[in-house]
């Protein structure tokens, strides 16, 4: 609608990640590099998916089941990439620990490892927001706005910004959960993350029904809040365990 509205939509989708970036990540250059690397990886996965699906597009917008298949394949591919990311991260952790030993500094703390996971997740989330929401925001800086038939109550830009915000939260914190799950061998956490991702993806299918976004978006936010709570509980548990373990050594 105007430059102000455009910036508003952008901040709606990316505001929390911007504040997270400035407060936690901008202080440590390695985390900035992690964010950039994971954004790039998410982009590459998206390009591969679009390459695979290019032959079938454009899909008819009336039937919903091709989109279901699309979501299932995409989520499966990205979750598979997350496992690979974990393996790469293990190697990175070993290298960093060896380097820390060499320069006689302490090894990576638990909070360091969680911060790296957070940065990785933030990279994924920011990539999602940038490619699914921000890149389509260019018309919003002009004088008019745009409505989609399926969700005619609010402008398209607002809907996509809200969905992007939910997904940013989900991506950011599910990476922390996943890395902790793999580190501790906790099956619940390991299966929680792909399940959440799949559920979130499928919930957006609810938007297919006309007026469905009124139901779909709140459910999506429910999923995001669930992820947040689970991550918070897990982090709290680990930190108290760690602190009590260190306290025992005193």
């Amino acid at each position, binding site marked *: 609608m105007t430059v102000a509205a455009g910036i508003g939509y952008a901040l709606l989708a990316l505001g929390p990640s911007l504040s997270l970036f400035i407060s936690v990540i901008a202080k440590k250059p*390695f985390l900035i590099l992690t964010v*950039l690397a994971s954004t790039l990886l998410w982009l590459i996965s998206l390009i591969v998916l679009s390459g695979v699906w*290019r032959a079938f597009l454009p899909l008819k917008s009336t039937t919903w089941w091709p989109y279901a298949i699309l979501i299932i394949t995409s989520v499966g591919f990205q979750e598979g990439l997350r496992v690979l990311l974990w393996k790469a991260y293990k190697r990175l952790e070993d*290298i960093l620990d060896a380097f820390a030993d060499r320069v006689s500094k302490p090894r990576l*703390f638990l909070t360091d490892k969680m911060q790296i996971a957070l940065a990785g997740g933030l990279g994924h989330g920011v990539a999602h927001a940038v490619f699914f929401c921000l890149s389509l925001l260019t018309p919003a800086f002009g004088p008019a706005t745009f409505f989609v038939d399926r969700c005619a109550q609010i402008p398209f830009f607002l809907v996509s910004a809200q969905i992007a915000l939910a997904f940013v939260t989900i991506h950011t914190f599910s990476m922390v959960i996943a890395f902790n799950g793999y580190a501790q061998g906790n099956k619940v956490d390991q299966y929680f993350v792909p399940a959440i991702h799949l559920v979130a993806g499928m919930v*957006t299918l609810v938007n*297919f029904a006309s007026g469905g976004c009124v139901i779909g978006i709140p459910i999506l936010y429910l999923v995001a809040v669930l992820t947040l709570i689970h991550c918070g509980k897990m982090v709290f548990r680990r930190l108290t365990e760690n602190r009590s373990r260190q306290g025992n050594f005193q």
Partner: protein
Amino acid sequence: MAQNQRPTSILDSLGEEIIRILTPVSICMFLVVILVSILNTDSSSSPVSSIATIAYSETNSDSSWDKFVGALLNSLVFVAVVTVVTFILVLLFYLRCTKFLKLYMAFSSFVVLGFMGGEIVLLLIEKFNVPIDIVTFLVVLYNFAVVGVLAVFMSKVAILVTQSYLVVIGMLVAYWFTLLPEWTTWVLLVALALYDLAAVLLPVGPLRLLVELAVSRDEDIPALVYEARPVTNHDSDSTSNGVIQRRVWRERRNVSPDLANNMNSSVSNSNSVGIDHNDTILAGAEEGRVVEGNAELSAPLLDHRMTDNQHRQEDDASSESLLLEGIGLGSTGAIKLGLGDFIFYSVLVGRAAMYDFMTVYACYLAIIAGLGITLMLLALYQKALPALPVSIMLGVLFYILTRLLLEVFVVQCSLNLVMF
């Protein structure tokens, strides 16, 4: 124990130098994207006649093949001109005309800041209806340009001012390059990337000759080179011992051992860029095109540094440098990136901005990835490396992939509010 007063973890300072070079590159690209999106609202504006469009000037009605062939001819002409001028620069450097080179570069910076900057500010004034009179404008512009020349060539100015002026010069030249026709720009970028590869790595390449001359004489090549602020050592250990981003610089040993030369390699390339609406005068814009590592660690560290056996490729380099490192000299490290790299990265991103913002993000990530890979290769091979090829190739690849594949996919999903 270490509860209240944690010793600093390595995560606090690792990778700082890379960020110090990534930030200005990102700022330059961001400024060019903003300029392009403000000023280039109509894509088919009057084409700029310059040296890069001598052979063929693109019109909208030609077929794709014609455009491609024309762009190829343009790029060949441009690369030929660049090669000739670089050889002239090597000759002048060989004949020790450094004073002349420095004066010429000061003059070209003044032209870039004064005339190109002035034209862009005029366009902005026109667009935003800023009320300003001609006298104020001229005085401010003149002062801006003169301070810029002083900042870039007389290094007694605060480093932040120098860095800002270099970024502004890069932005101005990059913006003018984006005014070239579309096919010509893309083919030109690829051609320059290939030229850079050849000029730096081939034994007969002009840039390599220049580097060897400079190293053998221990002189600084007069060039526009961006130097990141040196990282201060937080403790006695080296900070530039990053593990993934291995930046283990090695001192180039000269014949005379009493010289304390820390310069690994630096390259500059004098390039003529003729951009003017009325006539094609050749204004000079200096471009350095090589990422140079210019750092050394304090001497006692050098023995410990190379004992890591996890990277097999490093073992060769490590044994060599252990032999050479008898009289190591410590100084703070800094990464140097030639201004030409800034310019052409920003041209790529600016050109992507003329299509859509999705391509901008994809190309930005690709260029950053290319720069990271180049820095890693620099740490691995420890010699002069061209900074353009990897980034430009990745950037062009991602642009094509995004435009053909990604955009359809994402728009399809988004418009149906189906996201993952």
